[in-house]
């Protein structure tokens, strides 16, 4: 597609439940990035992929967060046993190598 697609738009989970977010990058883009926006304008990098391979996972809280990008499937970000502090908007972005980077509309996760 011509735009980065993210589903669902909103997700509500009770504390301790699992949350799974999906991202379809722009067709032809080999890089996918996940960011977390907690406070109004603070973006925290989580993880990036080059095709289906993890490129940089330095931002991932490894105990509960995992992510995958498999061929012919949307990329996913999964949070096991969600906590209140996981409430945020999660953005996915995609790009070609060293080129313009485009963001999706985000998934708002609310943990109650």
């Amino acid at each position: 597609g011509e735009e980065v697609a993210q589903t669902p738009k909103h997700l509500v989970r009770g504390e301790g439940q699992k949350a799974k977010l999906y991202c379809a990058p722009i067709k032809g883009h080999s890089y996918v990035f996940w960011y977390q926006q907690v406070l109004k304008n603070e973006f925290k990098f989580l993880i990036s992929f080059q095709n289906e391979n993890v490129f940089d996972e330095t931002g991932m809280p490894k105990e509960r967060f995992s992510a995958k990008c498999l061929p012919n499937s949307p990329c996913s970000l999964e949070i096991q046993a969600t906590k209140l502090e996981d409430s945020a908007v999660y953005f996915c972005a995609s790009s070609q190598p060293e080129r313009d980077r485009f963001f999706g509309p985000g998934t708002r996760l609310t943990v109650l």
Partner: protein
Amino acid sequence: EDQVTQSPEALRLQEGESSSLNCSYTVSGLRGLFWYRQDPGKGPEFLFTLYSAGEEKEKERLKATLTKKESFLHITAPKPEDSATYLCAVTSAGGGNKLTFGTGTQLKVEL
């Protein structure tokens, strides 16, 4: 560690009143400087990428420039629909390929 600072935090302009937003950066080997616009409840909308000092890019009423220490986003004769938060971000040789964001400038353009 890469650092990006944007100023001012908030800016209120009258329609037609031109101004500039600033993004200063400290990085180890700049690879790219990105400008985005973000409306409430939406994802960042891509505006420009600048790669080297002296580079300039324009789109409608917006013009982005880059020096070795900072970037400016010039807004000429703004309209109310230009109201949004403008975000600056960098990638660097020392930071992998992740974007490091500033905290944005919230722009409001009034009639």
